[in-house]
């Protein structure tokens, strides 16, 4: 049906609705520009709602992995420093033993051994910021080294009795389905060192012992210490291996962190593509919408002037 006449009021109403439509479109673009977001409701993202919500959630999860990995990294770094110190102590022990043999003089050996024991125990019984024992395995509320003095250590039937730590290692989730186990326990790293310290102290307390009493080493002492050089070297090497192993874990965590950063960039970029307003597009759209509203107003104004009332003379 062709329209050959129009109703005046319908025409006015139609023009009014067009002005409203243009105004509403303009309003939407303005809101997009002002908020920087394409929409502020779930419905506003249409068929991309699920992927956007899932991406934002995945990114938050990635953020959680990042936080946990950084916390784990901090602990592994701390252990790295402390294990290096422990390794230095093993080196000192080796040096003290080999020095005594080379100089044929053992007067200061036991004081050095004592000092190394004290330092090693202090490291192994150190606590983290939460007050938890770092090298206690799962039993973080119990000091992993139970002996307070070298003589207590000597008195034990076996070195294993000096450790009260659990076997459990901490783990951290670094990505969906990827868990890294980290941390070392006192008995893992220090059994060799403690065994050597115990042996030397036991020898010192034995019949051929008492290094500090004589100015020169006896044959038996020289022979014992010569044998101990090899043991201390092994202890030192083993501790270094532990430091290295811990370093590998630290690297794994660092790598995981790098991976998480790139995932963060990826997720954020992906979400931003959906969520954030493309300013260039929006600005162009804004200008178009403004023009549209102006045109609608213009047409209304022009049409309102068009009436026969202005042309028909008032007869009378």
């Amino acid at each position, binding site marked *: 049906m062709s329209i050959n*006449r*129009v*109703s*005046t*009021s*319908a025409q006015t109403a*139609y023009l009014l*609705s067009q002005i409203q439509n243009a105004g509403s479109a303009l309003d939407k673009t303005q809101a997009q520009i002002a908020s920087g*977001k394409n*929409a*502020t*409701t*779930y*419905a*506003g*993202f*249409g*068929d991309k*709602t*699920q*992927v956007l*919500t*899932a991406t*934002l*959630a*995945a990114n*938050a*999860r990635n*953020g*959680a*992995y990042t*936080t*946990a990995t950084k*916390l*784990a990294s901090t*602990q592994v770094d701390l252990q790295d420093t402390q294990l290096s110190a422990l390794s230095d102590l093993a080196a000192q022990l080796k040096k003290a033993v080999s020095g005594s043999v080379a100089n044929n003089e053992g007067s200061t050996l036991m004081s050095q051994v004592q000092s190394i024991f004290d330092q090693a125990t202090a490291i192994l019984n150190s606590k*983290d910021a*939460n007050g*938890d024992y770092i090298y206690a*395995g*799962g*039993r*973080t*509320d*119990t000091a992993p080294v139970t002996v307070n003095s070298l003589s207590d250590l000597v008195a034990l039937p076996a070195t294993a009795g000096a450790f009260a730590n*659990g076997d*459990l290692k*901490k*783990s*951290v*989730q670094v990505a*969906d*389905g990827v*868990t890294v186990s980290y941390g070392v326990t006192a008995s893992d790293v220090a059994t060799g060192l403690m065994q050597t310290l115990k042996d030397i102290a036991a020898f010192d307390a034995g019949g051929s012992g008492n290094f500090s009493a004589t100015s020169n080493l006896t044959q038996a002492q020289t022979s014992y210490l010569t044998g101990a050089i090899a043991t201390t070297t092994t202890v030192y090497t083993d501790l270094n291996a532990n430091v290295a192993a811990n370093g590998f874990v630290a690297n794994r965590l660092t790598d995981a962190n790098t991976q998480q950063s790139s995932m963060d960039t990826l997720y954020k970029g992906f979400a931003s593509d959906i*969520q954030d307003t493309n300013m260039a597009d929006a600005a162009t759209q804004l200008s178009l919408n403004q023009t549209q509203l102006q045109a609608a107003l213009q047409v209304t104004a022009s049409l309102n002037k068009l*009436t*026969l*009332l202005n042309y*028909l003379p008032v*007869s009378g």
Partner: protein
Amino acid sequence: MGLATVCAEQSIRTNDVSLNGIAASAMSALKTNSAALSVVSNNISNLNTPGYARRIVNQQTLSAAGQLMGVDIASVQRVASAFLTQEVLSSGGAASQYDTMAGLFSQLNGILGGPGDNQSLATGLTNVASAFATASQSPTSSASRTGVLNAINNLAAGFSNASNTISALQKQIDQQAVNSIGSTNQLLKQVFDLNTQVRTANAAGDTASALLDQRDVALGNLSKVMGIKISANADGSVNVSTTDGVNLVSNTYAQLSYSGGATNGSYGNINIQDVNPQTGQAIGAAVALDPHLSGGSLKGLIDMRDQVLGGLNQTLGNLAQQTAQTFNAAANANAAYPPPSSLTGRDTGLLGTDALNFSGKTTLAVADSSGALVSRIDVDFSAGTLSVNGGAAQSIGGTVARFTTALNTALGGNGTASFANGQLSISATGTNGVLVQDDASTPSARGGAGFSQFFGLNDLFQSQAPSITATGLLASDSSGLAVGGKIALSLKSPDGDIVKNVSITTTAGQTIGDVVNALNTALGGAATFTLGTDGSISTATSALYPGYAVNVTADTTTRGTTGMSFSTLFGLGANAQGAQAANFAVTAKVAGNPASIGFARPMLTASSVAGDTIVSAGDNAGAIALQNAITTTQNFKSAGGIAAQASSLSDYAAAFYQNLSTQSNSVTANQVTQDGRLTEAQSRLSSNSGVNLDEELMALTSYQQAYAAGARMLTVVDKLYQTLLDIQ
């Protein structure tokens, strides 16, 4: 022209013309044109009146005995088109339906927020995982426990708020429906009354009565409430019915009745009944209007309330139930450090006399405050025995109460076990604590849930309804329901018609199977409940009732002192799913004591002996398991328009929002389409029936001039008389 011809013509015309005749003819022109001017005047004054159809004047020659006698108005015609009017009414109904829905969606969208505000359930779930991730790195820190508690509280609040929002909106919509009943009834009565008046006016020859405009307005308003069909009668009245033919106005008129309100989240029907106009008495039986609604705001309200929000509520409930189950399962496999001195379970709805129905093995251990094993009780449910610290096997009995007694005896001086009001409680004496560990290869299970999980000893979340609906009850188990309890069911069609209302009353000595059979008998084959081997009840409607929902409209049954009704226990009825998200919360024991959240996994082995460490402070395996709860794949059943799927909690939450978005956008698209259709129909109708000012001004001018010319004629006649009278 020849003189003879002219004379012949004159002889025809000049028979009986009188000056009076001319004056009368001119007078008729004055009358006719002034009447026409009055019609134009009415048109102009009703320029902006909604529903006004323009009138046009049909003139006819006035004649008497074949002689022209001037002019007369044959009729004042009301320019209306039945087709276009029906099109406007029909598109108006559809537009009004989607306008209503779009308005409500806009309200819902506003309340639920957007993806950018990080308040979504998907974000809430992720925040819980984040909190557990942080806690896993410092499991002993009280700050990380507080962080976890905050995150799970926020998630729980997210569920209960969303559930409240949806329920509140449903109630608001229902109230809107109730409110529109009164005005709709008035419209129906008004159309009927106008019909009567139009019939009278029509009989009196007034075919352009203003009553027609009024009736059109009333019909237009009515069509915005519900889709209507109109057929015109010869006497000027119209018959109005719903689009599928249910009488609204004819010789009688219909009245609607609806008082609103939901029972168990299921809303009733709007009833419609004919009324005898003479007596005001109802005729016949009331029928449900809901299935006969097509278009109109009422249809929009009901669809929004039942389909859209009802569906969202079910999807939300499904997510809430799966969230509770997943987190509770993980939490129940964990142990807190130091082990809590007592574990108190949920209300399982079980009675002491209920069969134990567990299979597999589990170990209950008493440990000291440093996590060292004090005593262990290995329970072998399949064999029906338990053994204390590896000792001789002892019977655990076949019922829940007997098992509890056996457990209590086995705990000896180390603790106690009790079972009352559906809740299992195990305590250790002194500073010791209790923990439970399922066997790795043959874990304990009742209805698919492990011992600790089934009894909810370490639950994180709870809601109005138990999340475990696989009760483990067998058909042969006693129903345990108090005699005289009533379960009422309704069968509701997808378009809202309640086609069946049935109920059963519990009798003495019934088994679970008996109750299920009684319900099935009552439903008469329209729908069937089936008790699964895991003690869950599934519902299937017959081929005659595809897509129908069985709702529980009332349930006064109780299982002993548990206070649990039959339908709550089994999550019976389509309306039960939504209840899973209602009042979703962190369990009181966890909320009150975040230290009871287990971050560790018990480390009992077959060879663990007293003194062995079975739970340690630095163990974060449990926290990592809880962290992973949101990403592990769960089997979701079909609910509220989202098909059954294997998906993670996080992804299902995203699907929930997608579903909302899709429905909202579909309504908006329909709104645009129907508004466009309405605008087009209105534009066509108004092009036909509406007043055009220019046209009226032209008519005004032409009638005015015709009037002036008629008046001039009278002047001429007057002059003629003068001339005649002047002849002397």
